[in-house]
């Protein structure tokens, strides 16, 4: 941090923004008396995240449910109670992890193994289908730096980065000047394929409107055209055969193409088979030119959880330790399946908010079981919790490693001190782990 005389505050530079998977690492934050006063370079969502640490009524004391009412307690008591719940449970679910550091993930996985639980990340309701497809057919991918320096054709399919990853286009894909793309966006072409004309589609060179839930058929038809096969229909998914053939020619004749895809592919109709077909299209195109594909990961460290879990267990999400060794099969061991079949009997939720985002049936089961919640905010999940331990914001009040959507690890810096007495996710989880193994 340097002293800025004009504003009489310290300036933290090259700060990593802990909001989305783009993980911008050029943020500047002004700090005065341990308070954030200004944030530069970040998008509106990122800026709001930095200022959310100043939120009024932010919880600072652990709470524990006694006779149906949440009462304040000490960290020691809350940690003890959490360890007790997890030790007693015969099928605990450990869920969340996408908005915390890899260091915290490591402790979480250690707890899951120790208590023989099921550990799952938010991937399971987000890019989980992408993972299934990648396991089936592989994934020819690259880093965002390669896209910046080489890509001359960028496709956004079923995603809207103008709203969800606002700086993705300006930092990596369309606007930056790259080593082989000296004129920036003039050297590149942007194609958007979506079911409606989004704000990203409005700035695209070409927008292709696909019918709802027909992405799979369109992908198959493009593949047939790329592979020189006949398409046995005049219109596929609302796109004419001629247009598909023209698009296939364009894809084959670019120098370096890349497909970015989002929930529009992973969570509609064919789900993981959409991604499967999109990856196979990328593979087919590599017979003609250089092509890559990349998921638009949402939360800033959802990729990191997959990386840490894979390195420790061999599987990227939905890992079941109940038999003593890691078992993996989304559909059986994923959070919603374990909840909806009524198997789980206790839950530890870290850095996510399933009560706000899970289907009603899953939430009904969550409400019935002892729930431990670790996170910086009051959320619908914290309202249902039996033990709530508030934590600091990783990347703002605590440092920690996070993985960008192209699996490049970056160290998210600490900018200000957290509220007095509030521990980081990492410290809380480490203490719960030590409490569980104590006396064993």
């Amino acid at each position, binding site marked *: 941090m340097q002293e800025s005389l004009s504003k009489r505050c310290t300036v933290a530079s090259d700060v990593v923004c802990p909001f989305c998977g783009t993980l911008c690492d050029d943020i500047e934050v002004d700090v005065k008396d341990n308070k954030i006063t200004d944030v530069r370079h970040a998008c509106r969502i990122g800026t709001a995240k930095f200022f959310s640490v100043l939120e009024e009524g932010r919880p600072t004391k652990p709470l524990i449910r006694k006779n149906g009412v949440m009462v304040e307690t000490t960290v020691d008591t809350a940690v003890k109670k959490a360890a007790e719940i997890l030790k007693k*449970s*015969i*099928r605990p679910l450990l869920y969340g992890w996408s908005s915390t550091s890899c260091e915290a993930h490591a402790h979480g996985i250690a707890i899951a193994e120790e*208590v*023989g*639980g099921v550990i799952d990340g938010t991937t399971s309701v987000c890019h989980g289908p992408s993972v*299934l497809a990648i*396991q*089936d057919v592989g994934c020819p991918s690259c880093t965002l730096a390669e896209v910046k320096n080489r890509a001359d054709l960028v496709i956004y399919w079923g995603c809207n980065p103008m709203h969800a990853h606002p700086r993705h286009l300006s930092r990596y894909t369309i606007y930056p000047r790259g080593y082989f793309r000296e004129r920036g966006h003039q050297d590149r072409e942007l194609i958007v394929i979506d079911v409606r004309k989004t704000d990203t589609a409005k700035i695209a060179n070409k927008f292709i409107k696909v019918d709802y839930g027909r992405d*799979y*058929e369109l*992908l*198959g*038809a493009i*593949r*047939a055209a790329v*592979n020189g*096969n*006949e*398409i*046995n*229909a005049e219109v*596929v998914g609302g796109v004419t055969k001629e247009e598909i053939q023209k698009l296939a020619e364009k894809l084959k004749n670019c120098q370096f193409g890349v497909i970015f895809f989002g929930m529009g592919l992973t969570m509609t109709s*064919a789900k993981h*088979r959409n991604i*499967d*077909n999109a990856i*196979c299209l990328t593979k*087919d195109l590599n017979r003609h030119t250089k092509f890559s594909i990349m998921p638009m990961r949402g939360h800033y460290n959802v990729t990191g959880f997959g990386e840490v879990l894979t390195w420790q267990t061999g599987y990227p999400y939905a890992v079941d*330790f*109940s*038999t003593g060794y890691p078992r*993996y*099969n*989304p*559909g*059986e061991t994923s959070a919603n399946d374990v909840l909806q*079949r*009524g*198997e*789980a*009997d206790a839950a530890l939720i870290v850095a996510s908010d399933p009560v706000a985002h899970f289907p009603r049936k899953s939430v009904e089961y969550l409400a019935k079981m002892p729930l431990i919640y670790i996170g910086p905010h009051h959320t619908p999940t914290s309202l249902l919790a039996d033990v709530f331990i508030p934590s600091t914001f990783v990347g703002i009040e605590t440092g920690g490693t996070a993985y960008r959507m192209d699996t490049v690890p970056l160290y998210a810096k600490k900018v200000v001190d957290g509220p007095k007495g509030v521990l980081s996710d990492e410290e809380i989880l480490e203490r719960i782990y030590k409490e569980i193994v104590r006396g064993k």
Partner: protein
Amino acid sequence: MKEIILTPKELPDVGLIAETITPDLFAGKSIGKIASLLIFAGNQRKKLGDFFEVAGKSADDASDTRIVIKGDITKVKMVGKGTKAGEIVIEGSAGMYVGEEMRGGKITVLGNVDSFAGQTMRGGELVIKGNAGDYLGAAYRGDWRGMRGGVILVEGNAGAETGLFMVGGKIKIKGNCGTFAGVHMKKGLIIIEGQTPERAGAEMTGGSIVVMGDTDILPTFAPVNEEKNPEIDGEKLKGTFQTYSGDHAERGAKGMLYKFV
């Protein structure tokens, strides 16, 4: 053939992992020894006898052993995993992974089964009198070789992705089938006597799928000709069928789709 009868007691909500229920492990064991076989209830290591009354007698050889389960075991997973010989009869509905990695013998389920039944099956016979869930006779996540041999017969309906990455064997469904039947199929035969909504044979490169009911055929399949009473993999079919080749999204695909007309 000698029979072992398992009568379920009260089964816990957490579900059981009972891969030990197979004739191969029961053969040559006394009732007491069978009752002390390992079963997982959540993260607890329990004994088979904690959840089932065990009666009857086992043969010395697995192929002479029949296991009869009297009642519903929808919360029990992996019954008959890796069965090589002998017989299992489930007089009720069963949970996930029935007959997973089966290599021989016969498993009959009088009720329904949950998803992943007959996953990566290599041989034997799996008969389901009720309905089957998703991923019937499919590959394990990330495996590009699914069912390799054996026969699966479903008298009710089956779910999505039946026969995923199939490389051999036969699946026959008397009712309807979910989407993506035979996705990524390379060899083998799937017969759907009811209807399947769409995307049958998606990304298939070989093998055959027969659909007797309604279905939407993918635009990447090409019509070939009409065949009368075709015989596929030793299975004689009656009637006239429109044949399609595909899936031509793949290069050099040789899969065949037969649609009853």
